[in-house]
């Protein structure tokens, strides 16, 4: 595989920093943030659709946790969650049991799936000193009662967060947080757009690192990082490779190992679209920073959030959205990268597959676990898939 040898050293440093952040199970960055601002707190959230704006507005640091990869041996969690449960649930609990979650004062879960939900309450029993809460994200977007219900739910959470931080949140605080995150998400959308148009300029694993860093950094800092990176990336002089263009679907929650993402690319794919932690954008467009901010946030989840297997909108099926995404990114194929035992992703594979076949879009299904470390088999499968598309 031809790797570009003259990589901008500044870019390289940014990627290294991101990788360090993501691999650091001690959450040194979070600890330092707290040390630098005594009295302020950090609240973790389970991968997607968390109302980070609420945490931010309450003056705390929102941190997205996406498992522990292969960096933690399971000692306790296996006995609690047993077979047939995805890894992220177990590694998250394991982090708690091994004191890795110490820097966090709270933890938010939401109604994405049954395993994650039960995890919330198991955590509650095992870590009574932590504020742990569960957000009921609604599954009936068609009722006019839904946005007000979610707004009430957000207000309930906000009251708890205010108690935790000791900071009363005003509407202006919220609007300010919404604007900051809007800007951040807009940059990420820009990054994804760049990948779709000039895939040689930014590899998927690089973009992944940049985006995932946003889970762990204060939004202001991350926005700056993205701004700089976007500027640098555009000036890269890299040649187009002879690769097929694929959209990756199915890794919205548990994350594939970084090496696996690289391997997919090296086997001959440009990943022009993906759902790694839903690209951290969560909304298709900006959340209006006017009016009643809580209601706007709620309305945005109900009416403007990006599709995924853990969000149900019967007005526009996910499978239609996937086909549209393939067309919009001019992808040749879809690669289902599904976390082992992720039931929502398993279920959706069927209608996705049916619709892709109807639209004549080839696809390949792969399974991974975050602790995976040998990739020979996956590699053979991806290579075969690429070969079946390029050789005639």
């Amino acid at each position, binding site marked *: 595989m031809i790797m570009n040898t003259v990589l901008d050293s500044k870019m390289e440093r940014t990627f290294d920093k991101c990788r360090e952040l993501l691999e650091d199970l001690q959450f040194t960055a979070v600890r330092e943030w707290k040390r630098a601002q005594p009295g302020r707190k950090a609240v973790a959230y389970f991968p997607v659709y968390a109302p980070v704006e609420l945490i931010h507005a309450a003056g705390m640091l929102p941190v997205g946790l996406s498992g522990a990869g292969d960096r933690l041996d399971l000692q306790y969690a296996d*006995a609690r969650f047993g077979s047939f449960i995805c890894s992220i649930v177990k590694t998250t609990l394991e982090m708690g049991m091994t004191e890795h979650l110490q820097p966090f004062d709270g933890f938010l879960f939401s109604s994405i799936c049954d395993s994650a939900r039960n995890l919330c309450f198991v955590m509650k029993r095992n870590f009574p000193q932590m504020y742990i809460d569960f957000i009921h994200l609604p599954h009936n977007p068609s009722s006019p009662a839904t946005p007000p219900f979610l707004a*009430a739910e957000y207000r*309930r959470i906000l009251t708890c967060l205010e108690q935790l931080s000791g900071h009363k949140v005003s509407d202006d605080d919220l609007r300010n947080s919404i604007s900051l995150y809007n800007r951040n998400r807009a940059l990420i959308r820009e990054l994804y757009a760049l990948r779709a148009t000039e895939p040689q300029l930014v590899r998927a694993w690089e973009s992944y690192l940049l985006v995932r860093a946003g889970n762990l950094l204060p939004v202001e800092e991350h926005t700056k990082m993205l701004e700089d990176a976007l500027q640098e990336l555009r000036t890269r002089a890299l040649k187009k490779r002879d690769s097929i263009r694929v959209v990756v679907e199915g890794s919205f929650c548990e994350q594939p190992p970084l090496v696996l993402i690289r391997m997919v690319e090296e086997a001959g794919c440009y990943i022009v679209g993906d759902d790694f932690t839903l690209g951290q954008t969560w909304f298709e467009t900006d959340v209006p920073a006017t009016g009643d901010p809580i209601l706007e946030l709620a309305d945005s989840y109900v009416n403007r959030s990006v599709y995924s297997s853990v969000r149900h909108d019967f007005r526009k099926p996910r499978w239609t959205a996937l086909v549209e995404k393939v067309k919009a990114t001019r992808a040749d194929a879809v690669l289902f990268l599904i976390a082992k035992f992720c039931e929502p992703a398993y279920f959706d594979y*069927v209608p996705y597959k049916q619709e892709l076949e109807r639209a004549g879009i080839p696809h390949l299904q792969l399974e991974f676990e975050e602790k995976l470390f040998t990739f020979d088999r996956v590699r053979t499968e991806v290579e075969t898939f690429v070969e079946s598309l390029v050789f005639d």
Partner: protein
Amino acid sequence: MSEKTEYRGSIHQSQKDLMLNWYEQLDRAATTGDPPTVSMMISGNCVELLEGFGAVPLYPEVNALQLAIRHQSLDPILAAEDLGYAADNCAYVKADIGCMLKGITPTGGKLPTPTLILCNFVGCNTYLKWFEHTAKLTGAPLYVIDVPFMRTDEPRKEDVEYVVRQLKETVEKLEQLTRRKFDYDRFRQAVDCSRRSEDLWSQIKHLARSTPSPFDAYFDAITLMGPLYVYRAKPEGVEFFETALAELQAKRDAGHGVYEREHYRLVMEGPPPYPYFRTFRDMFAKWQACAVASTYSTVGGLWEFGFRHDPDHPFESVALHMIEQNVTNRNYLQRYEQIRRYVEEWNADGVIIHFVKSCRLFSAGQGDMRDYFTKQLGIPTLYIESDLEDPRYFAEAQTKNRIDAFFEALEHSKATALRGSA
């Protein structure tokens, strides 16, 4: 096994008759389009609302369950897996979808395409997928009642309002689809019937507090659960539960238990392995172990702790029932508490946790539950794994080994305690 493990009274016959009658109505609906049918989940079902339209509930779970008990679930499961469903998807869904693909019904009768697919989402995210996929397959209209999960100790005012609002939208939807006017009085009467059925059901469950228990609150309770979901809102249902109570009360008063000598009293957590229902039951019968309470018998409603539907607040009480009063929509810690109360108030010796691979709602985290009961409360607890629908996950020898080892230990510690006190 010569052990008589099952009580057979007149309630078993009337239960059969009731369920047969239900299947006949479904069959009629399939051929003539009348009565209207609404498919719905057992957990958090709102049959009372259907009464307002003279509509009949269609429970896909009951079909899946029947298939498994009749050892017919593997074929439809495989058919669904051929379509692309994973080995690790809930087999209830696979069996149901497989049936649809192959046109199978467990009773041989016909099943109608429902007038409305009403996804009463309570707790189980898989329901959403299930109904969404069924709607895609059949083209039937779909409406989701989003029921907020019990994330706080009490249901919130907003939760109830939200559900009531959606119930009313369901009424509108059904009025359009059935071209019938919603009969509010009939709805209220249905709610009142439910209240009475529930009261009787609750009394039945409390009979199991006697030693010996007159029935098995896991294996026998399942027989009584069909009428509870299909008929509780009808006078026939009330009548059925009156007979059942009288019969079991008489048995209790005569001091008759499930076994000649009831050696162990258990609380069961998790659904049973339907494909091996009999075999599984015998594994406990061998030890004369009787279930005095079970969480599975509360998937459709949790009435033994006092909740009743309320004809004075019909919509609100239906909403409350959906939110708060079924085990699937209650959080894990509430389930721990429920089991703890069973152990104490129903005077049990141990807890059996049956991990079913299909159902994350029930099973994800049951290891923590075991930890809580053994470590925190010091209650003997057995953890076994299989499945409620997929026969491939039942390892008979291993399960038997575990159960035997559990009772061997229980017997041993009982004996030691006895010797100590002598």
